[in-house]
């Protein structure tokens, strides 16, 4: 379970351009669920995900992750958590140009000091899973958008994370590739991963894999539009 207690994030505090991006968010997210953060541009989705993913610290408030409080942890422990607990999928993929697809996928595992042959096998297996194994030795700049996204997902999974964080994963994909992404996410959900997605793409938030939609507005949770959303509920809506 991931619990956020009164989390605030203020950028440029005490300066003229002070901005409250996340404003007193309290939430409980269940393990093994798919949660979508939805809201207009600038509503704080990316900021909130970066707080949960230990990439930034809140200005105030606490976040409990799988029983451990993470906002007070020294940096050394955060590195470890980021590496082992989270797999990140970004809007712009953030693949590293100039090296091969396979190297990109293996990169997050290098600090763990695993045997290279074992690591390579696992990376190739992941690429195979997402149908890009034939591109393993291509440089990433030659990939199409859909391929790049699948490579990015393979990279996010290389350290066997229990939580996947995806920020606007369909922003650079056409609708066919977006549906393909939903199927990949469904597979990850079946593997009992916890999935957090920021998205304003209906293909994502209307999909039947989503357990909960959190609506953000001006850094706050918009209560009126938030609630558990079950598959049954969704099918009822579709049936009408």
């Amino acid at each position: 379970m991931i619990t956020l207690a009164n989390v605030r994030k203020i950028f440029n505090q005490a300066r003229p351009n002070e901005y409250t991006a996340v404003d007193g968010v309290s939430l409980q997210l269940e393990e093994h669920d798919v949660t979508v953060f939805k809201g207009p541009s600038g509503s704080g989705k990316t900021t909130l995900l970066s707080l949960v993913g230990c990439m930034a610290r809140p200005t105030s408030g606490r976040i409990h992750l799988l029983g451990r409080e993470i906002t007070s942890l020294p940096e050394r422990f955060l590195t470890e958590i980021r590496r082992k607990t989270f797999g990140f999928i970004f809007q712009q993929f953030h693949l590293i140009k100039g090296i091969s697809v396979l190297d990109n996928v293996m990169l997050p595992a290098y600090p763990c000091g695993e045997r290279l042959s074992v690591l390579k096998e696992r990376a190739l297996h992941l690429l195979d899973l997402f149908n890009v194994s034939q591109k393993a030795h291509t440089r990433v700049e030659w990939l199409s958008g859909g391929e790049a996204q699948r490579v990015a997902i393979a990279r996010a999974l290389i350290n066997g994370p229990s939580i996947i964080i995806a920020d606007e994963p369909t922003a650079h994909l056409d609708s066919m590739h977006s549906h393909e992404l939903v199927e990949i996410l469904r597979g990850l959900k079946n593997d009992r991963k916890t999935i957090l997605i920021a998205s304003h793409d209906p293909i994502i938030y209307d999909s039947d894999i989503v357990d909960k939609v959190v609506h953000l507005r001006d850094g706050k949770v918009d209560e009126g539009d938030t609630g558990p959303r079950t598959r049954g509920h969704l099918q009822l809506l579709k049936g009408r």
Partner: protein
Amino acid sequence: MIFHPAIIALCVASLFICLMIAYSAYYGIKIVKGWDIKSGSEQQLVLERRTYLISAILTYVFGFYLISLFLYVFTVDRLHIVFTGAMCAAGVLKVNSYGYPTLLLKIMIFIFAGLWLIVNYADNRAYDYPIIKTKYLLLLILTPLVITEMILQAGYFLQMHPNIITSCCGSLFSEGKSSLTSELASLPVVPMEVAFYLSMLLTVYLGISFHRKGEKGYLFSVTVAIAFLISLVSIISFISVYYYELPTHHCPFCILQKEYGYIGYFLYVALLGGAVSGMGVGVLMPFRNIESLTGIIPSTQRKLALIAVVFFLIFTALVTYRIVFSNLVLVS
């Protein structure tokens, strides 16, 4: 005041140290008063982040402090040519009443700062700042000492007039007078040598057994403290005499000079290093059962015990080598 580059360096560095310690102590007070890890308040989160800066500052400050003790002794020793009557640091420290208190305080802070760094090391390794309040309480005790030391040192250098006639170490550390130093110098040699070797033996034995089994940490630490004091007395009582090969010369400072291959620095580094790491074992004892430290402190203590043993063995080896090969025979 004498304008010597090292004196200016020492005074300016002391001033910086004091400013940085005062800054750290300011946050230390806030931490001791307001720290609450359970709270998610903005103030608490600011303090949590601030501790990294403070910890980094203090590591450098105390790191410098460890050097400053030796720079002070070295500078004072170099100055003996300026003063009529002085032959080494002993006489120069005596030119006014601030010299020896500054040295004593520097040694005390050296040990205290070393122990603080050990506690800080352990605390920084845990995930929940388990001994942060104790750590900053210790810092608040240390702060006035450091400031006093800066003032004493400034007083010492400012009131240093080149025309002062001072006494030489020969008279300061000679037998048969009624001062503390001469009483130390007149201690009987054989019982002192026995006490010295017994304390070293016990230290090494307890240290190795602590390294193996992790038991009797307090006993080991207290033994180290006693062995440290006995060693200091031994330097005046008989160790220096073997180096000078003069049965009446007991000065603990002349061994720092070139004629004796600067051996004094090695002796004192070994002794202080052994004392700090050995006493560090005991300082960590009360915290070893804190949940987030159970995986950290025992291994740190074992390492410290081993380091202390190595330092004391080096010290004993240097001393023994000299006793065996010296042309002077005190005990036949």
